[in-house]
């Protein structure tokens, strides 16, 4: 019982990180149809900005300033580049952000160098808050958890309770009606894109110090974001949350399972030749294949439920 609770909690911690990372993209994609390949790059920028700012004026100011800068960067990217490409369609937008991904990665290397930078958890949050089954939990991890939950609550209530939120909600299911409402669509798009990027930036501020802030972090985190938004359902914040936690728990549980197919075969009283080619597959333990599970989930989802967990439209 203890073990299960503990695994679930670890999964939750990891899942909320994924949620912070992908909530921005689910908004952007749901509303604008722009699949921002560079989303994880904004996450990376968040971490680097936070590193730079916290070096001079501390972590808490960085927590506010860095996402604001990212929001501005995102808005500028939308205004001066994406808007231009918009007329060529969504694929062109995706292509542009693919190029942007390379540009940001190289710019980061140009400014901060290619080695990881020393972005650390602030001293006042670096203590053990409580322990569970002999494992201590750092106050900072709880701080991150609280912020990510708050982020969900605020976003969710903004989307469901305010006028602006309702327009965005409407746009998520029927992109064509926004313009008919007479709102300034380019402006709304710019703000949404900026907000989405800021959310990724905030995630970067919070996670950069535990994951390590280095130029390759965008590449290693990028694809998992797409898994979350597809599995959750396009444009569904709730879906993104559930999918994130699901992926978090699945990964965490899988790592703790040292069983392979061979164990099962032996358990039911059969055996497979040691020389057999099948050993390649059946000897792998679940914990070893854990990293491909999210992608497997993505593929299965696309085959059996293309609209995702909470989506209104097919992918």
């Amino acid at each position: 019982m203890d073990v299960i609770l503990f695994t679930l909690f670890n999964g939750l911690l990891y899942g909320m990180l994924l949620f912070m990372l992908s909530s921005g993209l689910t908004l952007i994609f749901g509303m604008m149809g722009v699949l921002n390949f560079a989303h994880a790059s904004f996450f990376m920028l968040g971490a680097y900005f936070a590193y730079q700012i916290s070096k001079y004026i501390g972590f808490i100011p960085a927590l506010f300033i860095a996402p604001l800068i990212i929001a501005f960067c995102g808005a500028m990217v939308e205004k001066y580049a994406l808007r231009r490409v918009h007329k060529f369609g969504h694929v062109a937008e995706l292509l542009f952000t693919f190029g942007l991904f390379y540009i940001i990665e190289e710019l980061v290397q140009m400014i901060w160098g290619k080695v990881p930078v020393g972005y650390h958890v602030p001293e006042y949050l670096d203590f053990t808050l409580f322990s569970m089954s002999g494992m201590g939990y750092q106050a900072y991890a709880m701080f991150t958890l609280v912020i990510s939950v708050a982020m969900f609550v605020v976003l969710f209530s903004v989307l469901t309770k305010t006028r602006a939120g309702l327009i965005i909600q409407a746009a998520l299911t029927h992109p064509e009606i926004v313009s008919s409402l007479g709102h300034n669509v380019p402006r709304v798009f710019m703000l949404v894109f900026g907000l989405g990027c800021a959310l990724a930036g905030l995630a970067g501020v919070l996670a950069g110090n535990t994951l390590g802030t280095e130029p390759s972090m965008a590449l290693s985190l990028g694809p998992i974001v797409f898994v979350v938004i597809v599995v959750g359902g396009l444009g569904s914040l709730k879906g993104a949350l559930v999918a994130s936690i699901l992926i978090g728990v699945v990964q965490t549980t899988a790592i703790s399972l040292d069983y392979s197919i061979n164990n099962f075969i032996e358990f039911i009283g059969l055996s497979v030749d040691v020389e057999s080619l099948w050993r390649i597959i059946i000897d792998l333990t679940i914990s070893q294949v854990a990293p491909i599970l999210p992608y497997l989930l993505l593929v299965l989802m696309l085959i059996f439920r293309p609209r995702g967990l909470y989506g209104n439209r097919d992918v």
Partner: protein
Amino acid sequence: MLIKFIKLFLLISTLVFYSMASKADEKIKIAIIEPMSGPLASVGLDLIEGLEFFAERINNAGGVLGGKHIEIVPYDNAMVAEKTIQQLRKVIDEDIRYVTQGVGSNHALNIIKTLGKHNKRNPGKEIMFLNHSAVTTSFTNELCNFYHFRFDANVDMKVAALVSQMTLDPSIKKVYLLNQNYAYGQSFQAAARRLLAERAPQIEIVGDELIVPFGKILDFNPYVSKITSSGADTILTGNWGPDAARLIKATTNSQLKVKFYTIYAGIPAAMNSMGAKVSTFNPIVQVTESHENDSTHPDWLKEIDAEYMEFANKSPYADRQRFMMEMFAAAVEQAGTADPTQVAWELEGMTGRGAHGDVFMRAEDHQMHFDMVLSHISTNVEKTFIYNNEDYGMAYETDGWVDVSDITLPTTCKMKRPKR
């Protein structure tokens, strides 16, 4: 239209090829193939810089063979295997007879295989591979080759050093093996299992894990919980990069008290990215050929270190580059020619000066042998690590030396040698 394109292409490429054609000169060239772009670029660039420094020292002291200079020619492989092969072909074209490389054993393997074919097919045009850091043991065992020399200890030797040191610490009773699931991690795992059984039967292996490598795992908490429940007091790991840093951070955050015995987890870049608190919460022990804060560090080496600091704004890290270049220069001098075959004969069995006694190139398998130092990261040191003017505020503190006899392992190498 296509023909026009081709014409244009022909014209441009002719111009570029001509401009690239190197003029014959009296320099002895060593090509270095390392990542100069992509995620591991900083590692490659630092190594190139180090090599350039040691070449310059030799040149300033009058060069070799009566005034010939050594020139380091860098090539970028961007950590892509095919590019390594491609760059190697460029090296062959430009008639450079010495190649050095170290980042990524898979790239070293490509170089060994490609040069093996080249040297067989082009007698008299042989190219020598000076391997400064690629540690896969098989290069000096079944894959050994007359034209390959390794100046770093191999994985087995490094693990042997770690295990020897572990036997001296009676508090180590339960060890957890955690390695990356690729060639290097697997050979680390195999060596650790074998050597622990041979040399430290009192230590129990309570966990043995292979993880997916190269930063694919973001969350190490589940592993930490596995380690916690196994009751391990020591983690023996070959992990490097984010796979090491995230593991160490996760143990620190969970307040898990263990000792880390590693090869690359405590390299300077990792030290900086983890920060002082994480780096010193648990002892992170690594094995190297020397380090600046060791009390036995000889004076002449201190002078070279100071020179390097002046040259590169960095604390010295890979002393093996120094003795590699010194021994290479000495071998050329002794051979009286820059021909790789003659130089190889001289390098076999050669001794050089090391930080802790002599270093020795074993003739049997072309594997360098030397005493190795074990140290852990500490903030309480005389000289802290400096990188590009940034002071990391910590460096290594010696735990002990392992004598070369303890890490001398038998080889399976059956080398074919050319006629002298």
